[in-house]
């Protein structure tokens, strides 16, 4: 049995240093479907020392600043290997060979010398007749030494990217007519071959490769790895999908959230939901918005919701309390520091408006504006983000109606506000009218708050918002 070790196109990253092993010629046809892997990288290639080439301007030494690869990685010709710096010039060194990195001769911040070895690359020098094997060509522009590998038997000229494209689409290079120099097979030739086969017009690659003539006509393998071809084929073919899972450690802010949410889960939550008719409030806000604008403040609905909540907390202070760790003591907080959940790039942050009990609706609007602009600039301070006693989450700005909010310790209650929808409702006379309806979903700590208290608080809050004039009676 002839064992053909066909090295998988090293430019397919996700099989890195694994080798595609096939046992006979016919299996090669199906090779891209049944990927048989050998996990042990059998070293059968020659080690080549890739020297640091001339930088120009008579420079003899550079500082190595960053490695893009590490020992054991597979590289393709033209892949970036490292970044070096010399006198205000940053130089990207690219690989001249396809192969596996075996040794890095320098560490970061070392001085590297022109003409001396930079990395050792193991080049696969497989011999044997394999129809899909191709020659690695250097581009005609370079005057550097060749990495020309001549393989006995079928000799087709094509760059690694072209080879990969052919393999992905199950094409025998011997069947493709090459239109490049020396009958070299170019990417266009593969695409044309496919087009002829399927009878479809292929969409142009969105990358700059196919843009104007002055551009290099080389099928440069520097093209991105993901090549999901949008070929409208009558028969569906397995198209190579090169996406892969990405695992990242949970760090920083996310780690803190994990802790907080785990602690929140220990709180026995109960929920209470209701529907609020904001028709009158919508009208009131329309009237007040221009007045606020004159004073340079953007007035949303939140200041009203927040003030009404504070008025409710005056009647039901247990909702503005905190339970200690051992559940021995309940602390009734004097200040109503009402948190407003904000969605930022990092995730959920909850700055709070301090002492709402002594703020007017306008004061709250001013403070909210300040917190919102700091929040979007990523410049909130620690005092803005600590000391909250009660939270409102306006998830409705994103969407949704009812929610099941999670209480943020050390608080004992939270309200989630859905979006305002225009819905038909019946009025006192039994007539249908257009109502502005918003849903609210409360969650409370059942260890110290009972359903009746929550319901009564919600009803009070609801009555202030459904009939904003009533807020005037109780405003302090």
């Amino acid at each position: 049995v002839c064992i053909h070790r066909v090295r998988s196109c090293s430019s397919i990253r996700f099989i890195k240093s694994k080798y595609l092993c096939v046992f006979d010629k016919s299996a090669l046809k199906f090779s891209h479907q049944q990927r048989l892997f050998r996990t042990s990288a059998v070293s059968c290639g020659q080690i080549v020392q890739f020297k640091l080439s001339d930088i120009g301007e008579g420079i003899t030494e550079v500082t190595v600043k960053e490695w893009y690869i590490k020992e054991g990685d597979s590289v393709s010709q033209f892949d970036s290997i490292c970044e070096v710096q010399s006198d205000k010039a940053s130089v990207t060194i690219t690989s001249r060979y396809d192969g596996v990195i075996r040794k890095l001769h320098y560490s970061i911040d070392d001085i590297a010398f022109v003409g001396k070895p930079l990395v050792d690359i193991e080049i696969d020098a497989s011999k044997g007749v394999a129809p899909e094997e191709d020659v690695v060509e250097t581009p005609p522009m370079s005057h550097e030494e060749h990495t020309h590998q001549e393989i006995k038997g079928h000799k087709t000229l094509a760059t690694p990217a072209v080879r990969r494209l052919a393999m992905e689409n199950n094409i025998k290079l011997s069947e493709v007519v090459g239109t490049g120099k020396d009958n070299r097979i170019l990417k266009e030739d593969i695409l044309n071959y496919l087009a002829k086969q399927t009878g479809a017009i292929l969409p142009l690659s969105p990358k700059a490769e196919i843009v104007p003539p002055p551009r290099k006509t080389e099928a440069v393998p520097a093209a991105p790895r993901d090549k999901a071809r949008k070929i409208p084929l009558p028969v569906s073919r397995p198209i190579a999908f090169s996406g892969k899972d990405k695992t990242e450690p949970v760090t920083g802010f996310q780690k803190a959230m994990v802790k907080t949410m785990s602690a929140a889960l220990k709180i026995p939550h109960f929920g209470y939901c209701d529907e609020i008719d904001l028709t009158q409030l919508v009208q009131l806000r329309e009237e007040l918005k221009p007045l606020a604008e004159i004073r340079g403040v953007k007035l949303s609905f939140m200041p009203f919701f927040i003030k009404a909540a504070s008025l409710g907390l005056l009647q039901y202070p247990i909702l503005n309390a905190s339970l200690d760790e051992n559940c021995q003591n309940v602390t009734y907080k004097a200040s109503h520091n009402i948190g407003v959940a904000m969605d930022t790039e990092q995730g959920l942050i909850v700055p709070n408006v301090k002492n709402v009990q002594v703020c007017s609706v306008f004061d709250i609007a001013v403070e909210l504006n300040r917190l919102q602009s700091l929040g979007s600039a990523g410049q909130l301070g620690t005092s803005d983000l600590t000391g909250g006693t009660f939270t409102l989450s306006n998830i409705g700005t994103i969407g949704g109606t009812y929610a099941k909010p999670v209480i943020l310790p050390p608080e004992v209650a939270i309200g989630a506000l859905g979006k305002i929808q225009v819905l038909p409702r019946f009025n006192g006379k039994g007539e249908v009218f257009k109502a502005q309806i918003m849903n609210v979903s409360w969650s409370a700590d059942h260890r110290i708050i009972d359903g009746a208290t929550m319901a009564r608080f919600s009803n009070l809050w609801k009555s202030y918002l459904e009939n904003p004039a009533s807020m005037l009676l109780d405003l302090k």
Partner: protein
Amino acid sequence: MVLQSLKNCLWLSCILRTPKACFWSTASGGLIIQSVSNDVYQNLAVEDWIHDHMDLEKQQVLFLWRNSPAVVIGRHQNPWQECNLRLLRQKNIKLARRRSGGGTVYHDLGNINLTFFTTRKKYERMENLKLVVKALKALRPQLDVHVTDRYDILLDRQYKISGTAAKLGRTSAYHHCTLLCNADKFVLSSVLKSPYKGLKSNATPSVPASVKNLFEEDPSLTSEMLLHAIAKEYAIQHQIDHHITLINPADETLLPGISKKTKELQTWEWVYGKTPKFSISTCLNMVYKDSVLDIKVNMDVKHGRIEVCNFDLPEQWLPSGLYSELVKSLTGSKFCPNETTTLVTTLLRVCPQDDELHSRWSLLCENMIRLM
């Protein structure tokens, strides 16, 4: 072949779409383009795009651009070492990291940027700078400007008016430089002064220099005039039309893939995460009640994230469990004031609810965040 004709169609549409034709023309040996945008990230992305996608064998390119206020650091630099990040955030001045080497510069509309694109073989910085000097002298013969061997351009033998940096790739290269026409020197000097102490790093340091605006030497000069003079000289030397093609860096059709490049330049991972490993060893002076506490802090930051950190706190000033929780949470998180603020305030939710403890925690954290 079907594909060939499609290719030609696209090329033609490119020509027809540009405000001035001949953007992609192979007829001339050079091309002068100017960006219509003042966004530093978009303009840096154009440089990347030309470097990656244009064939510079037949024609070299001169790219002219100006930015609204921004600080631009070199590829291998440390932003904490180079500028006052706090001031940048306050004044809403952008921070960008370019792909070329060299030092930190301040850009505003009073500064012009010139990028000379050539093949790797034709990379020649001195020639480019001599071209600029020639153009300046042609415009105002009395100007005393010359190129130093550090590739700076000096005015009156003492003031730096231009700094240089370069990027070399496999087949192409570019050399870009600044030129101070009428920049805000006050802002320049305040943002380029780092307040951060105790930093130790191998990042490329900037060499501070006295600067002067050409406008101060000759108030009749404007950025526009300088741009035109340099374009004119470039046109003469490359034997092409003195013709500036305007390009819009947001045009994805003309520059396919440009928005991806622009986005990448704005990511935290690029701007801060590419900072070479550095360490901080300093003292926090915290005013607590009636006394001042000197707390020694040590941090190692790699890829912009805290790798190691410790604080030399008085015994039991913070309960040890809480202290280790703080250190554990900080490890791996970004060396960034916003991330750290949200992290420490979130952690506070699960700490014992003790006012004294909370105020100590806030004090320590606020002081620590000032290091970022």
